[in-house]
Structures are given as structure tokens and as C-alpha cells.
């Protein structure tokens, strides 16, 4: 891709048409990367523009990601390489947009490419220049906590992997140095570079500029910038990271010593209505703080961690358990209190924090204080918005269409990621896929016109050669290297049979390492490759691709998982872990030597899609696909479309949901390419990616629907409470029922004097250990609505934590300002509701302990509204079984990867969206529905899909025609055919799914599953036990 910019620059001298693409993605963080990849895969040519010297964004700076503690760089960097290798993405780094002209479908974007003073084509990323450069500057990637050189590569996995020269360079200042120019063997240093203007024509634009962390210096009230041992959470992220300023050792700034007593302060810059603060909730800080606590304790088990917090907002999937995990760690204390920074102790440089306790204000000393800073709009948001001609919302983030959170105010310009407002990685990825889907919809007639297929070098035939195995051991920063003795593992690998080369690397998945592996394969004539690193479930595709780049068959690769299955699970036993890692590599090498080259083949893709569930999620997905010309079957179990949204009347932002829903339904019903099947039951699903057959029964009719992709959008149900007199007393209702009554103008309700809302009914408890996410906002929505029609009504909200995350926080504040009263209760001391007849008056008496007053309160209410849990829809288990997709422990559908594949299933060709995945708000559902459609488009836009070469085959001579294999295979991949030696089993590789059941059943050893043959497994067994 390094050539791309040069070609581009050259072309820009010529006719403008040369710089034509389909979509420009502006901002190369995880969201921009995902949008670019989806679009490029779906047949569009993409320009990915990034203002820093590399793609990666904020995610690249994170150490781990919540709530799984996945290594951030490890899961993101394969995407860098994918972008780099994708021929339809032109990455333009160190480049900013100067202006945008034109209209949707026909934009002309003028870009300014800043001078790197490095010729990107000549730079090999060898870093010799960095070695010789005499100027040290604070390293921005490490939050200025360590020094780097004025010429350096932004970070070691950077794409493109080339240096850039900072303005502090002596030559640039006063032309005094230029050592780098002399040491560079490739003459890549070019001080004559100047800013370059480039024009690109595209049809659509996706904005993904991300966010800025809140700068606590602005208000100066937390000592940041004045007290050395006060750091921000992003600083701390770097301190935790193996590639950080101290190689993963947590050392505090003042004396570079391990801090033993660390405090985190929540909501720094968030939920503050003060000048310089942000009124909204930043949505991610609670969980990232918990992550940092867990990781810090992992680094130093004796560390004392104190977290000063307001509400704990664990509203996402698995966040609640994550919080519990952090809270249960020894030496970790969560304290609910506002705090202020006290002083810096002159000798120790420790910092004191003052906070409220039951016994008054306490001042406590800490070795290090971490500020959990919030998320701000990009620093240049106003100017940025002006360039693109889009409007900003009141919080300074991008203004979006209330019924389409992916649309900006300017047609043809879409938005993805945190510029929509504070959000976590999966939501940023979802909106990226959604922006991809909408761009594709706009440009549907251009699909495939400008794109090209990737070309690999011809594959070398090495089948006759002796196995020559290369072993590449990854340190994964410190993830492996800190536990497993990597040099000794490399040394050991060299002693193994067939191994002709072994080496280690800091990150095997970094672009340059992948390239180096490819080079080594060629240079050393390797014909088998073992990478000892992480799990093949995430990284095997990347390394297989590397083998293809090197011109050998991709199935000559085996992955030794020494991270998930070794260093991470045996972190307290480094010696045993090293021994085990050697065993794992030995097994892998033994297997690798037996690997055979396999051919992959193409299967046709049926262009139709099936969407299960006719709620807003399903309808939106179906419409997105149909609008792009793909026939879509929308299957709904009820007799009408609409789903749960039929019971929602307005959103907190004021959208008229019924009007929106009716429009949507009408459009869907009338769409010629959408076949709506109501009263439907799915009875059977067969097939596989690109070729499913689903049997649907509806109104006495049964039909088989052939489709290439499926989207599961089956929604969720409302829990029917058994608590608080629900069902016994009509005055006790759920929030949804309350909303129905409000909307119907129920007089009793509207004229009542008081209403008590009880939150967390049926969830955040042992049997439903999750937060239903939407109830706090729903309560605020209904409370505000009631206050607007009857300002005199007393409304009490009994809550555990108010989880009005993101911009909903403003409505929480508004409710509070309008005198809605909030009383916090503890789960072990829940409120009591009783029906009371007193003085001729009938009412509900709600008793609750007030933690502030420290006594029981009795609230006399005319109505009680329960925030009933959102629970998995009744048919989830059956749907999961039919489509062979998993459910999470809470019963919601389980996506392929919590962070980076949030709307995919591990099973190819099946996607998910809406509340089937987890409770979510309407706008989030819409966003996810576009996202799922976007992912499905990456499949449906192709005529074929590549199937694995790991399928079964039959050695006809050994076949005894017993038929055992045929009964084992329900895919119908095996049949008998006539041969001169009688009937023999035969396998149709197109139908074979590679499970290998027939192999295990065959008594004569005639059937074998390629890539998992008996012989290969025997070698692994023997090697495992040969230690």
C-alpha cells in the first residue's frame, strides 16, 4: 500500500478522474477501519484518511479491553494488516481533509498531506534513523510518559510501517543536524517534502474522527499537570501496557517506583455541570476503571485499590459480572463518594484525597491517583464539522438523525464511532458496519465497478520436499514473554525434528513481522510454519494469508497457542508454563511436518436473505438489504410487524415512535423485494453460509426458503414481575404499561398525586445477573412526561445505580431539577409495597430505607411502576438450536467476538441485531440493524464464498462399503457410487462441512478428514507424551 499514495500523488497531477473512489472514510481508528474493510469487501473502493502517522486510533493505545480483558493491540492489529493487504483500500495517513464540495453521490474532497519528511516508498521501517537521531521528544503514543526520537515510527505495529519526522527535529528547526539523512541506507529521508494537496472524488463519506479524552488541566481541580503522581486513565493504560513507557511495569511518574496504594476517581470531566466540564456521562469509564483495577491487581496482587465513584454504570453485556469481579478482589474497595484532591506530600510526592464518610470528611494518602477521564468531542470538532458541512449537537458531538443515528445533517455523509457520542468499541464497530451499509445503499449502482481482486504469488509445489519447519515464537509484548521463557523456547524449537529455523518476535502479528515471516519463508525455503502465539480462532487467517503471500499453501501452517492456553492461565508458574509451551510447540511441529497442501473451493452464494423477527431491528435490516436489490424474507411469529416497538410511544429524545413505526411497517410491507411472512414458525434450517434452506410454516402453508444469509432479530421480552404486588393490584404496573397509560391519557394515572418507580425488578440479581440497560432512561422518560402533564405529581425513583449513560444523563438531571426524588436502595434491603386502606383512602404504601437519612421512609403512592427486566425472548433457545448459534449464559444470543465482531455469529453467514443480542434502546437497535445488514452485504455482494479445504475424502481401496460414514453425515455429502470394485462411498466436498464424524466412524480407515487426519492427530498425541 505504500505505493498507493505515491501513485495517488502522481495521478493527482493528471486528470481528476484518476483519483476516483467510492467512499472516503475519515478517521482511521477501529471504527474507520471496520467501515473501510466492510465497504472494500462489499465491492467499493475506499480511501481511508487518517491525520496521525498511522491507522489504529485510540484503541491502539489501550492495554486491554473490557469486559473480557482481551489484549487490545492483539485484536486490532490484524485489522491493520487486513486494511494494508486489501487492494480496495487506499490508506492515506498524516493527511487531513481541507474541504468538501459537491453532493451525495458526487463529492470532491481536497486533502492536505502533511510532510513526513520520509519517502514512504523507500522507508523499510528499519528504525536506523531513530537510533541515530539525537533529539528526544515526549512520545505521544505513550501519552508523553516516555521519550522517543524526533524521527520514529509511531508504534511498532503501525500501518504504514514507516517513520515520520516531528517538528522538533533540529534540521527542521535550524538545519543543524540531518544525521538521519546520512544513516538511512535507502535515502528515504526527504527534507524537501512540503504539504501536498490531493483531490479525490467519492460518492459518499463516512466520518469516524473518534473522540478526545477530557483534559483535566482545563479545570485544574484534580492536580493533573501539577502533582506528578496524578495521571489520567489513558496515561495509566499506557503504564499497564507491555509496549508502554516501562514495558508493562506500573511505575509512578515521580520516582519510577511501584505504587502500592492507588486511587481511581470516577466521572472526571463527566456528569459535571460546571464550566469546562461535560454534563453527559461518558459511558465507558466505569467499566474501563474496573478493567484497570483488575489488571493492576494482576500486575501486583498486594496493591491496595480504592475506587471513588458515583453510580456504577455497568449497563452493557457482561459488564455487571465484570464489576462484581473487580469488586470481589482482595484489597479493592469501591467507595461511593464525591472527592476532592487534597495536597501533594512534599517528600513522598504522595497525593491526598478528601472524601465523605459516615463519620465525616476523611483525608487519605495515595501513592498514585488515576483520573477516570471522560470522552470529549474531537478537539477540532467545530472546524471539522464546518469543513464537511455537517451540524453538531448540543454536546459538541455530531448531530444525527433521530431515526437514523448513522446519518448526519448532510446527505451522503455518514457517521460512525464515538463522534456520535461517547460509546465503547463494539458500538463503534457496529456503527461502522452500519455506515458501510448506508454508503453501499447510496452507491448501489457503483458496486464492483472500481474494485479489484487480490493477487497472490503462484504457489510453490513442495509436496515432494522434505518438511522444513520454521518456528516463530511471539512474545506478544509481555503477554507471553513475561511468563514463558521465550529465548529458551526458541532454543528448544531448534532441537526439534524438521525444524530448520526458529526465531522470536515482540508481536508476530505486527505488519513488519508478518512481512518478515513471509520473507523468511522464501529465504530459508520453509515449507511448514508454526507460529507459537495466541489462539488460531482469531489469528490463523492472518498467518495463513502470510503463507500465501510467501507463495506456499496456506494449510502448511499450524498455530501453537501458548498464550490463552498457557501464559495467561499459568501466570503464577512460569517454569511449568515454559515447560508446557515447549510441549505445545513440540506437538505443533510434529503435526506441521505431516500437513498436506489443500485446495479451497468456491461455493455459489444465494443472493436472498432471511431475517428472523419483524420488529424494528428486523425491518430495518430487511429494508437495507432490499433497498440494495437483495430479495429478503422477513419472518415474524406474530400476526403483524412491529415487535416490542408497538408498545413504545415516544423516546426520551421525543421521537413519536408509533408514527415512525407505522411508516417503517408500510415501507416494508410495500417493498417489492421484501416477502413478509407473519404468523410464522421456523421448523427446520439446513445448509451453510451462502446456501441455507429454512422451512417456514405460516397459516397452514409450509415452504422452503433458500437464502444465502440470515439475520437473527428476534428481540426480547419484558419480565412479568412476581414482586411488589404486581398482578395482584392493578395500580402496580411495569414501565411499559405505565407508558401505555400515559400515552392513552389515563385519567386516574395523570391526576394521581404520587407515583413510585422501583428500578431493577427481576435483574441484577443471582438468577438474572445482568443490567437491563434501558430501564433507568425509560424511567426518566416517563417521569418527565408525567411531570409535563402534571407538574404537581410527586414522583419517587427507588434505584440502585442510576444508569442513564451517555447523553441520557441530561434527562436524569432534568428530572432531578423538576423535583423527581431519587432514593437509593440496597439489594439486600429492597423496598416493600403494600396496599393500604386508611381514612377512607386507598393507596399503595412503599417502604424504603433512605441511606442519606439513615431511616425508613414510607411513601404513599397512587401507582407504582416497576422497571421490569428485559429478558431473552421466549423462542430464543429454539432459534439458537435451529441456526446452530450460541446463547450467552444470560440467554441472549452470543456474538462471535464481544469487541470486534458484535453483529456476527461464529457460524458464517448468520448475523444478529437488536435486543436479541442484549437489551438496548431504539436508536441503538436501529444502528445495530444497519450494522448487521452491512455485514450481510459483505457476503451477499459476492457471487461465491470460499469454503475450507479441510473436508473429508475417501480412500476407495480401503472402503468396505459398510455405509457407516453415510449415516454419520446429515449433510448428505456422502453417497455410494459404482466402481469396478463394487459400490464405494464418495464425498461431495461442496457439501462436506469438515466435522470429521465419518472419519471417527469408519471402521476401515477409508474416510479421512483432511487437515485433521488420524496420522496428524497421532503425531500430536505422541509428541504430547514424549516430553
Amino acid at each position, binding site marked *: 500500500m505504500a505505493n498507493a499514495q505515491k501513485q495517488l500523488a502522481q495521478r493527482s497531477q493528471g486528470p481528476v478522474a484518476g483519483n476516483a473512489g467510492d467512499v472516503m472514510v475519515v478517521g482511521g481508528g477501529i471504527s474507520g477501519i471496520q467501515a473501510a474493510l466492510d465497504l472494500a469487501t462489499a465491492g467499493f473502493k475506499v480511501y481511508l484518511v487518517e491525520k496521525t502517522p498511522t491507522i489504529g486510533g485510540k484503541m491502539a493505545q489501550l492495554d486491554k479491553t473490557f469486559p*473480557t*480483558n*482481551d489484549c487490545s493491540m492483539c485484536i486490532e492489529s490484524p485489522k491493520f494488516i487486513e486494511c494494508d493487504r486489501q487492494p480496495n483500500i487506499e490508506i492515506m495517513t498524516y493527511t487531513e481533509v481541507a474541504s468538501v464540495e459537491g453532493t451525495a453521490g458526487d463529492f470532491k474532497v481536497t486533502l492536505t498531506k502533511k510532510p513526513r519528511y520520509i519517502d514512504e516508498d523507500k522507508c523499510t521501517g528499519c528504525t536506523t534513523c531513530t537510533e541515530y537521531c539525537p533529539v528526544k521528544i515526549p512520545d505521544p503514543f505513550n501519552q508523553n510518559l516516555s521519550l522517543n526520537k524526533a524521527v520514529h515510527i509511531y508504534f511498532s505495529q503501525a500501518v504504514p510501517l514507516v517513520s515520520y519526522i516531528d517538528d522538533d527535529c533540529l534540521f527542521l528547526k535550524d538545519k543543524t543536524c540531518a544525521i538521519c539523512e546520512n544513516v538511512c541506507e535507502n535515502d528515504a529521508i526527504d527534507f524537501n517534502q512540503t504539504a501536498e494537496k490531493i483531490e479525490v472524488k467519492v460518492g459518499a463519506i463516512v466520518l469516524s474522527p473518534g473522540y478526545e479524552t477530557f483534559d483535566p488541566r482545563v479545570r485544574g481541580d484534580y492536580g493533573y499537570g501539577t502533582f506528578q503522581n496524578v495521571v489520567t486513565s489513558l496515561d495509566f493504560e499506557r503504564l499497564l501496557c507491555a509496549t508502554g513507557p516501562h514495558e508493562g511495569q506500573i511505575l509512578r511518574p515521580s520516582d519510577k517506583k511501584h505504587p502500592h496504594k492507588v486511587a481511581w476517581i470516577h466521572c472526571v470531566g463527566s456528569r459535571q455541570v460546571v464550566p469546562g466540564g461535560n454534563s453527559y456521562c461518558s459511558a465507558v469509564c466505569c467499566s474501563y476503571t474496573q478493567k484497570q483495577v483488575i489488571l493492576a491487581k*494482576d500486575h501486583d496482587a498486594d496493591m491496595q485499590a480504592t475506587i471513588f465513584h458515583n453510580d456504577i454504570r455497568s449497563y452493557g453485556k457482561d459488564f455487571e459480572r465484570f464489576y462484581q469481579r473487580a469488586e470481589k478482589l482482595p484489597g479493592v474497595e469501591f467507595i461511593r463518594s464525591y472527592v476532592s484532591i487534597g495536597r501533594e506530600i512534599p517528600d513522598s510526592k504522595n497525593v491526598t484525597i478528601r472524601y465523605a464518610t459516615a463519620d465525616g470528611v476523611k483525608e487519605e494518602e495515595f501513592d498514585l491517583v488515576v483520573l477516570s477521564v471522560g470522552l470529549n468531542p474531537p478537539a477540532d470538532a467545530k472546524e471539522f464539522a464546518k469543513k464537511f458541512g455537517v451540524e453538531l449537537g448540543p454536546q459538541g458531538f455530531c448531530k444525527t438523525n433521530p431515526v437514523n443515528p448513522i446519518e448526519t445533517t448532510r446527505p451522503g455523509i455518514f457517521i460512525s464511532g464515538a463522534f456520535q457520542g461517547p460509546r465503547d468499541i463494539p458500538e463503534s464497530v457496529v456503527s461502522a458496519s452500519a455506515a458501510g451499509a448506508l454508503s453501499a445503499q447510496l452507491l448501489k449502482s457503483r458496486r464492483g465497478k472500481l474494485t479489484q481482486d487480490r493477487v497472490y504469488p503462484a504457489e510453490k509445489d513442495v509436496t515432494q520436499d522434505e518438511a522444513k519447519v520454521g518456528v516463530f515464537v511471539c512474545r506478544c509484548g509481555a503477554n507471553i514473554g513475561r511468563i514463558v521463557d521465550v529465548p529458551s523456547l526458541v532454543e528448544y524449537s531448534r532441537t526439534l525434528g524438521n525444524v530448520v529455523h526458529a526465531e522470536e518476535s515482540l508481536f508476530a502479528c505486527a505488519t513488519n513481522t508478518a512481512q518478515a515471516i513471509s520473507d523468511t519463508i522464501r529465504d530459508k525455503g520453509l515449507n511448514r510454519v508454526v507460529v507459537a502465539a495466541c*489462539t*488460531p*480462532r482469531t489469528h490463523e487467517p492472518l498467518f495463513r494469508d502470510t503463507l500465501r503471500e510467501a507463495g506456499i499453501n496456506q494449510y502448511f501452517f499450524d498455530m501453537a*497457542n501458548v*498464550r*490463552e*492456553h*498457557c501464559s*495467561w*492461565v*499459568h*501466570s503464577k*508458574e512460569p517454569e*511449568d*508454563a515454559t*515447560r*508446557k509451551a515447549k510441549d*505445545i510447540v513440540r*506437538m505443533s511441529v510434529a503435526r506441521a511436518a505431516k500437513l498436506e497442501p489443500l485446495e479451497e473451493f468456491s461455493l455459489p452464494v444465494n443472493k436472498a436473505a432471511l431475517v428472523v423477527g419483524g420488529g424494528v431491528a428486523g425491518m430495518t435490516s430487511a429494508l437495507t438489504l432490499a433497498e440494495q436489490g437483495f430479495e429478503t424474507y422477513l419472518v415474524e411469529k406474530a400476526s403483524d410487524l412491529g415487535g416490542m416497538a408497538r408498545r413504545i410511544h415516544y423516546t426520551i429524545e421525543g421521537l413519536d415512535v408509533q408514527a415512525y413505526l407505522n411508516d417503517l411497517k408500510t415501507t416494508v410491507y410495500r417493498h417489492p423485494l421484501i416477502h413478509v411472512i407473519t404468523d410464522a414458525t421456523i421448523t427446520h434450517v*439446513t445448509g451453510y453460509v451462502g446456501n441455507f434452506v429454512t422451512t417456514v410454516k405460516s397459516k397452514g402453508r409450509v415452504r422452503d426458503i433458500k437464502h444465502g444469509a440470515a439475520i437473527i432479530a428476534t428481540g426480547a421480552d419484558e419480565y412479568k414481575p412476581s414482586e411488589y404486588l404486581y398482578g395482584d393490584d392493578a395500580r402496580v404496573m411495569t414501565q411499559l404499561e405505565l407508558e401505555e397509560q400515559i400515552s392513552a391519557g389515563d385519567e386516574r394515572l395523570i391526576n394521581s398525586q404520587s407515583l413510585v418507580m422501583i428500578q431493577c425488578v427481576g435483574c441484577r440479581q443471582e438468577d438474572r445477573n445482568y443490567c437491563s440497560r434501558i430501564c433507568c432512561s425509560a424511567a426518566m422518560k416517563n417521569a418527565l412526561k408525567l411531570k409535563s402533564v402534571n407538574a404537581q405529581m410527586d414522583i419517587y425513583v427507588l434505584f440502585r445505580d442510576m444508569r442513564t449513560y451517555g447523553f441520557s444523563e441530561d434527562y436524569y438531571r432534568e428530572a432531578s431539577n423538576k423535583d423527581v426524588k431519587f432514593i437509593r436502595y440496597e439489594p439486600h434491603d429492597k423496598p416493600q409495597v403494600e396496599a393500604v386502606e386508611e381514612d377512607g383512602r386507598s393507596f399503595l404504601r412503599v417502604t424504603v430505607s433512605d441511606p442519606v437519612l439513615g431511616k425508613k421512609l414510607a411513601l404513599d403512592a397512587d401507582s407504582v411502576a416497576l422497571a421490569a427486566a428485559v429478558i431473552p425472548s421466549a423462542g430464543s433457545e429454539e432459534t*439458537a*438450536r435451529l441456526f*446452530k448459534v*450460541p446463547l*450467552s*449464559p444470560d440467554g441472549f444470543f*452470543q456474538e462471535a467476538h464481544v469487541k470486534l465482531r458484535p453483529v456476527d455469529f*461464529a*457460524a458464517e453467514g448468520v448475523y444478529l441485531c437488536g435486543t436479541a443480542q442484549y437489551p438496548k434502546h431504539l436508536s441503538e437497535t436501529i444502528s445495530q440493524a444497519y450494522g448487521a445488514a452491512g455485514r450481510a452485504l459483505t457476503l451477499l455482494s459476492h457471487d461465491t464464498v470460499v469454503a475450507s479445504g*479441510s473436508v473429508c475424502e475417501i480412500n476407495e481401496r480401503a472402503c468396505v462399503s*459398510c455405509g*457407516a460414514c453415510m449415516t*454419520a*453425515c*446429515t*449433510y448428505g455429502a456422502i453417497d455410494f457410487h459404482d466402481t469396478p470394485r463394487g459400490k464405494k462411498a464418495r464425498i461431495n466436498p461442496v457439501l462436506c*462441512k469438515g*466435522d*470429521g*464424524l465419518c*472419519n*471417527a*466412524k*469408519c*471402521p476401515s480407515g477409508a474416510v479421512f*478428514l483432511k487437515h*485433521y487426519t*488420524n496420522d496428524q*492427530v*497421532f503425531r*500430536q*498425541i*505422541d509428541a*504430547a*507424551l514424549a*516430553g
Partner: protein
Amino acid sequence: MAIGTEFKPTILGFLCNWCCYGGADLCGVSRFQYPPYLRVIRLMCSGRVDLEFIFRAFAKGADGVFIGGCHLNDCHYNPEGNYDALGNTLIAKKILEHVGVNPERLRLEWVSAGEGIRFAEVMNDFSMKVKNLGPFGSSEGIDIAELQSRLDATIQLVPYIKLVERERLRVPVWTDEGYRKFFGSDEFNELFNELILDKLIMSRIMGFLRVKPVSAGEISESLGLDPSEVARHLHDLAQQGLIWFDESQTLVAAA
């Protein structure tokens, strides 16, 4: 026990790619700890675990064998391969018991890709169980060479077991309970004794005879079998032409 002599078992694990391997990955990602005894072989489906894999693992000295698949009815594949794994495991346990290997050394568990913590729990538990059983052969009180020869005899029989399984040991109901009931039933026991056990004994006798000609008494003593049983099997084997007797009719040898 001194550190240097602490017994650290080797457990061979066959994990299906879609569920249990994913669960083991999530376990790692979540940093849940378990003892470093497990050595994993990744297969696409637990139903791919051949009986021979299990017996070979023990024959090569594994202290434990673990099979991990998707929860029943959650198999990634249409033919529900984990039922095959269940059937194979139950048969293998039965055979292991008969050849003198403690069947507790073989364990089958269902772990979904979302159950990282469960994978750690299962591993902690199984690791401790195997550790307490001691090295392969110790809890059995049988010489390892002897166990290995019995397992080798069993491996010889695997193709036959597969045929028998297909023809005669079909489980009528596809539920966990159905499988366990069937494999625990008298009907199964009878079939097992009749179809597999006899063959197993014959296979062991053959293995014994391949080394050197011996007398029927020696066979009976070495294999711990009733002399009349041995006589019956020798008669069958001779009829099949697999063995012959020397002139004095005192020594038997493999044909």
C-alpha cells in the same frame, strides 16, 4: 511430598473448535488459572475424537484424557457430533475399566465458548482428580507395560468396535439421559460382553501369543482369566485359523 518429586500429570485434551476450545480461550483471556497439566489438541468437533485417540493416549502414558465439546443440542454441526463423543466416551470408559484402567482418567465435559470460568473450574477439578489418582498405572496397581499391551490389543479392536457400535449399539434416544441409560442398561452390558469383551480377550490372547508360544495355563495366569474361558477362546481362535497348537498340544502359537 518434596517439590522435586511432586507428581505433575499430563492430561491430553481433545477440544472442539467451536465451543470448548473457545471456552479455553476465553478462560485465558479472562486470566482464570488452572494447573499446567493439559495439552490440547484442537479438532473441529468432539465427534471427531476417534476411540483410537483415547486408547493411544493412554497407551503412550497419558495420566488423563479430556474431551470437551459443545453442550448437547448446541453442536456447531448438523449431525450433533457431541452425541457421538458421548457414546464413544461411555464405550471407552467401559473398555478402559475392563482392561484395568481407571475410567475416571477419562472425562467428557460440555463447555460453551462463553464459559471461560467453567473451563477453569472443570480443569481445576479434573487436574486434581488425576493428580490424586497418581501416575498412569499407579491407581490401577498394574504394571505399565502390561496396561500398554492391553491397550494395544484394544486398539487392534477399534475397527471391530466401530462396526459393532453401528450395527448393534445404536442409542434409541438423543438425550443425555437416554445415552446414559442405554450405556448403563443390562441390554448394553450383555451386548458389550458378548460382542466386545470376548473379542477383546481374544485380541489380548493374540497379542500374548505373537511374542512367543505359551501354554494355555500360562495364558490363563498372565491374563488373569478363568482356564475354561481361555479354553473357549482358544477353541474359537483355532477354528478361525488364527492360532495353532504344537504337536504335543501343550503350547499355543499365533498362526
